[in-house]
Every structure is written in structure tokens, then in C-alpha cells.
């Protein structure tokens, strides 16, 4: 009888877990009523922290690396405006992804770097390629891969003839940027070499997409010349990176302007939330005049800077209380559970994205193992360190108890801020 009751208890647990999984699956990645935008299976490593969708999926992005023609200025005359316009287009869409670009700021260790070279990967016929990689520098290609960073490599020489116009260059950049956020080609299928015309695939008519070759190809080569992000592309992002504020916008073929709900941010300072603006619709034509200049405008009050102010802290001392101890472990658990946390002035709240000199770029305060966000593993590692047990930190990640100089990642405009002060 005891064994049987255990069996029922286990079944009940499995049932609850399975139903929870089902609920998650239906809310985050799928819903009924329309076909699905084709997506790649891998996802970025970023997780929603404490329900703060506004701070999620803001990808630090370098200004374009102009490495063609052996002359940055000459290369820039062809590529700078298309780059700015392509990313401004993506950033104006009603979805949770933001490419955070500051004019003139480049860092090979940002989430995304865009390189314009004479030939992409030594192949003169390549217009562009956009691989993503995991933290071990392996290319991502399956669902088990967590994307750590992405590259866009553009071939300048291939952009000649019908592909030489600024809108055609913008189309390539916009298309490749779509790959970085897991949008797959719309006009091809994995199991065939058939290339379908714009608005078609093997299932019949489908919405237009910047991820469809024939939609973005120049009119001169029988393409539609649609160089801009389409509602269907936004629909894809809203499936891959679901934010309740945007729901499944774009999936009905239009881009409405939902009002983002305030994020339950634990920060005492307001968190910048995306302000979606109406963008191009599928009725836009290739005659649209591109906007000039760098139109990616940070919306935070934080001033972009390449020289953030440093603050000495102890790695793992989450509440800046003088050392890493079980109280910090508890704070991490509270954050992971979505409960409120607090911090004294000058101490970042758990989940705040910071620049960590040991690492390449930003990581969240509380993510003591520098892996996969702030979670119970970090809590456990703080306890282990407190007990004097080695925590086997990844290369480049500070040891718990190390003094590090943290700087708020001011290069990423939409992140929570904290007031510098009371530095140790």
C-alpha cells in the first residue's frame, strides 16, 4: 500500500509537471490560429529576470566594422547609412528584442558584431552570413545550444550591379539581423533546394518576410525589392522571445501598437521600457526614402559612455554587506522566485546588468558562476563558497570572494541603473 501511494504521488507530480510544461509551451512558443513563422531552434542565453521583460533581449551591438576597400571612410559611404537604417527598422518594431547600438562604439565581445569585408569568408559570391555561437565558440545549430553571441559578415564586393544600391545593402543587413534573432528563411525549406517566390512556400501562400530571398531581392533580379521588416517577421520574434506586452503582434499581418505593461522591476529607479512605434507594413514599397544617420536612439537616461565609473565589490556579496554569505544565497533565491529584493545605496540589485572586467561584457549581478543568469545554482555556489568548498568557476569568471571592479554597463541603454556610492 505504501509503494502504491508513492506511485500515485509520482504520477501526480508528473501530471502537474507535464501540465505546467504544456501551459508553458502554449503560452511562450505556440498558439493556434495561424501558420508559424519559420524559426531556428536555438535561443539566446538571456532569461527574463524577475519578470522584467524590458531588460530582456537587449543585445549589445557594435557600430558597424567598416573593413572593405582598405579604407574605412570609403567603405562607410556605402554601408553606414544602410546599417543604421536596417537596425533602426528592427528597433522600431513591437517586440522585445532591441539591438543596443551607440554610434562609434565597437567591442568584439558585444552580443553582436557586424563586419563589412571585401569578401565574406573568402567567397566573392556571398552577400552575407550570420552565424551564432555558444559560449565555447561553437556554431549554434540545435535546440540544445544557448546563443552567446552572433556575427554578421557582409561581402562588399558581392554587392554590385543590382545589389549595389543602399536599400539593397540595407536589405542584406536587415535579413542577416533576422537570423541573429533566430528567424529562418521563409522562402526555402530545410529538406529541399527549391527556392519559392515571395509570399509562397511549399504550403501555398504565406506572408511576405525580410527572411524571404525573393521578397528582398532587387526588382532587377525579379525580386520584390522589399528591404524592410514585415509584420510576419515581428510575429516570429514574438514567438521566439515572447513578451506579454507585445503578445503575438504581427501574426495577423499587421503591426498594432500595444501598450507595454509596466515591468515589475525590482529596481528603485525606473526601468526603460520599449516604446513601440508604428512601422512599415507590407504595403510599403521600395520607393520609401531611407532615413539617414544613426537613428538608434537610446531611450534611457543613462548616458552612453565608453568609460564607466568603477565600483569595487566582492563577487558573491549580493547585498554588499561585507562578504559573501548565506544571506546572499537567500537573496539570489528570492530573486529567482520573483520575490522582491532590496539593496543599500550603491549596491546593485540582483539581476542588474553590469560590466564585469573579468568577462567580456555584461552579466547580471547575482549570476556568480557567469552562466545562464541568476538562478538557484548561483545560490548553491555561494553556500559552497561560504563552506570553503571550491565552486569550479568557468574560465574568466571571478572566484566568489574576489574583489572586482564592477561598472554599470552604460553601453546598454535600456538596463536598470543604480546609484553609485558607498563604494567599498
Amino acid at each position, binding site marked *: 500500500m505504501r509503494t502504491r501511494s508513492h506511485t500515485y504521488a509520482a504520477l501526480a507530480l508528473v501530471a502537474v509537471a507535464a501540465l505546467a510544461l504544456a501551459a508553458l509551451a502554449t503560452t511562450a512558443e505556440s498558439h493556434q490560429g495561424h501558420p508559424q513563422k519559420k524559426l531556428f531552434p536555438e535561443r539566446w542565453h538571456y532569461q527574463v529576470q524577475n519578470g522584467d521583460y524590458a531588460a530582456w533581449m537587449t543585445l549589445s551591438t557594435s557600430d558597424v566594422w567598416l573593413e572593405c576597400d582598405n579604407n574605412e571612410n570609403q567603405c562607410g559611404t556605402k554601408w553606414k547609412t544602410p546599417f543604421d537604417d536596417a537596425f533602426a527598422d528592427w528597433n522600431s518594431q513591437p517586440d522585445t528584442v532591441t539591438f543596443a547600438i551607440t554610434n562609434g562604439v565597437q567591442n568584439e565581445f558585444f552580443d553582436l558584431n557586424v563586419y563589412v*569585408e571585401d569578401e565574406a569568408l573568402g567567397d566573392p559570391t556571398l552577400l552575407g552570413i550570420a552565424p551564432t555561437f555558444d559560449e565555447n565558440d561553437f556554431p549554434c545549430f*540545435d535546440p540544445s*545550444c544557448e546563443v552567446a553571441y552572433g556575427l554578421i559578415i557582409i561581402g562588399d564586393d558581392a554587392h554590385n550591379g*543590382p545589389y549595389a544600391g543602399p536599400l539593397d545593402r540595407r536589405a542584406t543587413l536587415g535579413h542577416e539581423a533576422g537570423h541573429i534573432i533566430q528567424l529562418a528563411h521563409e522562402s526555402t525549406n530545410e529538406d529541399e533546394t527549391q527556392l519559392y517566390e515571395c509570399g509562397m512556400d511549399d504550403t501555398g501562400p504565406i506572408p511576405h518576410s525580410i527572411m524571404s530571398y525573393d521578397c528582398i531581392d532587387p526588382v532587377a533580379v525579379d525580386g520584390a525589392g522589399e528591404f524592410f521588416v514585415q509584420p510576419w517577421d515581428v510575429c516570429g520574434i514574438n514567438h521566439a522571445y515572447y513578451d506579454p506586452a507585445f503578445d503575438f503582434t504581427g501574426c495577423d499581418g499587421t503591426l498594432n501598437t500595444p501598450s507595454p505593461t509596466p515591468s515589475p522591476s525590482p529596481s528603485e529607479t525606473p526601468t526603460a521600457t520599449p516604446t513601440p512605434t508604428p512601422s512599415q507594413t507590407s504595403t510599403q514599397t521600395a520607393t520609401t526614402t531611407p532615413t539617414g544617420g544613426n537613428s538608434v536612439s537610446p531611450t534611457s537616461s543613462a548616458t552612453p559612455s565608453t568609460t564607466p565609473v568603477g565600483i569595487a565589490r566582492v563577487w558573491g556579496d549580493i547585498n554588499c554587506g561585507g562578504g559573501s554569505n548565506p544571506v546572499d544565497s537567500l537573496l539570489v533565491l528570492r530573486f529567482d522566485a520573483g520575490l522582491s529584493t532590496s539593496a543599500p545605496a550603491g549596491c546593485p540589485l540582483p539581476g542588474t546588468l553590469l560590466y564585469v572586467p573579468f568577462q567580456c561584457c555584461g552579466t547580471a549581478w547575482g549570476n556568480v558562476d557567469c552562466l545562464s543568469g541568476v538562478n538557484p545554482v548561483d545560490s548553491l555556489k555561494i553556500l559552497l563558497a561560504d563552506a570553503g568548498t571550491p565552486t569550479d568557476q568557468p574560465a574568466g569568471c571571478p572566484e566568489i570572494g574576489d574583489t572586482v571592479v564592477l561598472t554599470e554597463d552604460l553601453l546598454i541603454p535600456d538596463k536598470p541603473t543604480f546609484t553609485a556610492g558607498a563604494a567599498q
Partner: protein
Amino acid sequence: MNVVNPRPIWLLGLALFGLALFGLAFAACGSSLDDKPLEETGQDGVPVVHIPARYAKTLGADLDTLVSTFDVAFVGVVTGEAEQRSELMAGGRGELPVSVFTVLVEASADAAVVGSTVEVEQLGGITTGGGTRTTQGQGPVRLLMEGDSPIEVGERYLFIVKEKAPGIYRASPMARFPIESGRLQPAAGWEDLGAAQEIAGLTVAQAMERVSRSAD
């Protein structure tokens, strides 16, 4: 002493089991919507995954344009795969595999290279990457650029290639033509290109003569 009626418990167990199955099936259905299947398997039994890549198909609109885009054209038989190495991406971060094949040159406009063995590189190769793939027991995959297919050892091709260094060339999927029964074929997926249509069906001698005219 409590007497337990076994039937309701049995029914409860069955209901929970059914609920679990339903939930798991529903979850699997939902999450499979964007799971990309491994789409094909090469001759070596290794699944192929393509890296998205966009090409300027105008460069293959005719043979003259295609030849002028590259440096060298020759016909050769692939005698082996010399090595596979990793190539750092722009910025020095991230790597893609590159497969290096040895090719015995059988015909070329440059008589000096006929009979020599050169190296032809193809972007892509076998990897267990993706970080966690191997631990999931899924084994290796062959990464290839979109629109490309594996260069096969023992096969003959017309290569129209870029010269990276003396004797080392890089192949492009739209500029590589397999030769079957002595006649050129368009590469799979590139049949619609004007250059492919111009050259398809020609003998090796005819093709080399045609390529030489384009190069002039």
C-alpha cells in the same frame, strides 16, 4: 481498521497517468513547432546542417560574369580529404570548420598546373559543436553553407575558384560543377543560374574551351 476501496484509487491512478500523457504530448506538440529537423544525411551517414547564407545570384547569371568573379578554373578529380581545420571569423571570435580536399588537376587553361595536386577548400565540415550536442548523444553533424553540398572524394568537378595562396583555392557552391559520364552538370540547387545552363551538358573539353573564352 480502515478499509480501502481499491477501485477509486485505481481510477485515480489511471486518470493521473492519462493526464500526464496528455500534458506531455501537448507540451511536445507545442515545442516542436520551431524545432528544426536535421534535414539530410550525407553519403558518410553524417547529418547535414546548413548555415544560412545569401548569395549574389547575379554573379552566376552568365558564364562570363562567373568566370570574371573568380581567379582560376580547372577540371580535377578529388583524391582525398587532406584535413579539416577551423577558421576564425572576423574579429577573431567564433570558428567555422573548413574542409580541405586534394584535387588532381586534369585540365586547365594553365598547362603548367595540369597533372599537379592542389588543395581546394570548402567552407564547412564535421563538428560536434553547439556545446551540448555530444552530451545529448546526438553525435556529430556536417555543417555546410546554405546551398552547398559536400564535395565528394572520387568525383570530378569543374572548379571555378578563388586563389588563396599558390596551390590553395576556395570553392563556392555556385561555381562548382560535377562531371558525370564525361559531361558537366549544374550543382544541385543552382540549376536556374544562367552560367549553369550555359555549361550543363558540355564535355570537359567543350567546357574548358568555353571557360577560356570567358576568361579572355
